[in-house]
């Protein structure tokens, strides 16, 4: 939460105090008047705190190591190619530990909060695999974005396949 947010919020609070509607529509239950009575404040702009930026080149080892791992529908199981890439990441993370973040994602099908949980499960299965390979778990942060940040925008099998993923990033 940025200072800007608070400042804008305060400005809007000030503004809306001038805009408070004094409508008195319903003479008995006043059900309609309540609507404008609170004069819904317009926006608060939040500058996103953002994440720590693009993939570090060192994570992909000059493009030789995959940093995105894909999953089957409704599955949190690692595929063989993901395991192979993660073995490489585990070696590098063990020899020179850095803080990494595993971002879990799902496709758009089904409900959003359930997909948040699935995304976290996928990221956790990657974390567990890395820890099994000897990486210290305290260097690994897990976060789920559910279906909120799709990599591909289409509503078809190939887009969904690209969206069911875990990305490893520098923290």
């Amino acid at each position, binding site marked *: 939460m940025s200072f800007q947010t608070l400042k804008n919020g305060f400005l809007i609070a000030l503004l809306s105090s001038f805009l408070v509607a004094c409508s008195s529509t319903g003479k008995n239950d006043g059900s309609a008047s*309540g609507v404008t009575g609170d004069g819904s404040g317009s926006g*608060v702009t939040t500058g996103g705190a*953002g994440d720590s930026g693009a993939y570090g080149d060192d994570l992909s080892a000059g493009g030789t190591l995959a940093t995105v791992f894909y999953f089957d529908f409704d599955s949190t199981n690692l595929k063989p190619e993901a395991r192979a890439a993660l073995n490489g990441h585990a070696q590098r993370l063990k020899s020179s530990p850095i803080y990494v973040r595993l971002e879990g994602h799902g496709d*758009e099908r089904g409900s959003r*909060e359930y997909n*948040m*949980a699935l995304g976290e499960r996928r990221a956790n299965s990657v974390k567990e695999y890395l820890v099994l390979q000897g990486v210290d778990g305290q260097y690994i942060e897990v976060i789920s974005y559910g279906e*909120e940040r799709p990599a591909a925008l289409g509503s078809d099998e190939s887009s969904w396949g690209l969206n069911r993923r875990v990305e490893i990033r520098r923290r």
Partner: protein
Amino acid sequence: MLKKRVFLVFCLLAAWAVGSHAELTIEVTSGVDNPTVVAVSPIKEKSGVLPEDISAIVSADLERSGLFRSIARQNMLSFPGDQSEVYYRDWRVLGAQYLVFGNAEKLPDGRTKVVFGLAEVLGEKVVLSQVVHGRDDSLRDIAHYISDKVYEALTGVRGAFSTRLAYVTSVRGASGRTMYRLMVSDADGARERMMLESTEPLMSPGWSPDGRELVYVSFETGRPAIFRQKLSDASRKQVTNFTGLNGAPAWSPDGRKLALVLSKDGNPEIYLYDFVSGEFTRMTKHFSIDTEPNWTVDSKSIIFTSDRGGSPQIYKLDIASGATERLTFRGNYNARPRLAPDGRTLVMVHRDGGGFHIASQDLVTNDFRILTSTQMDESPTVAPNGAMLLYSTKRGGKGVLAAVSIDAGVKFFLPAREGDVREPAWSPFL
């Protein structure tokens, strides 16, 4: 008679000048077979033109319920402003069963006074008559108020036109960056206002039971966190900041607690947050996913989604005893439950061979119905009067809001102007 005709033409011109400029175009794709015909005569101001076309708003409200059909203004033979100007024969020939009439008057203090009535055409009697006051910026409120009263008089069910919607939009900018916005609008989509804008995802808006605050999930800190925000001054507070998921906030009907999902202990579990004590109480203990809590009307139980049975299904948890019972058995995907105000109609996201639809289940008779024929349907939210539910779906590759009546007879879309719209949350009665 000639005088009357001339006056009518003037009124028509005035009405066109005002125009209708609703933000969203409502497209009713399916209504009831024999809608009741309600004519809404233009409500005009004696000495000028009102900034909003009250009658057009009332007509649109009634049509959107799917239960009523209105009569086009250009077909009307007279525009009665009060009871003495109602010629029932004018409305019988048009096939109108009911007539809404009224007039407006500017008061010296700047307010507008609207007198309106509802007449039964065949019985030739006025069944409802009321006076409402408001400022120019509350003419839409007056219109929705009239709609509520007419709806209630004709159906016996309280109208929900004076309520609001919260929803999330996302717009992908030219730079490829997505802007997420939390919006609030009237129930008809008009008077849209932005509550929050962020370059990080916003999710899961919900209302406080008094309709004055929203709860939602924002990723603005780089992680999901739950916030509450007042509509009046946009002031807000962060409620949670735990490691892992901070999601699916749902305010209890009694206003005292928030149900939510945290995975700080390694796995998504349902918690209750007490607004007074500030304490979090864990309600579920299971290695599977437990999420999407919602409250029963008495605030004594939680219904939620869990895949503890091998697929996502809906469960009910009694808060006092901890007893948990499974509610859904049809199909292998039932999620995101919401209870209608009757306390027995459960609505949810249900997957069948054709995709994801909104379905309802009567918790007493277990009667199960798939309500929508669109696919990729999610986030059902029931109107506070229980007559309609809104949900989000995909249309032409875009996220849009759609509505269906609880008996599946009435269906319509609320097309958006820009970007994707999703996660509607219908306010309580305000």
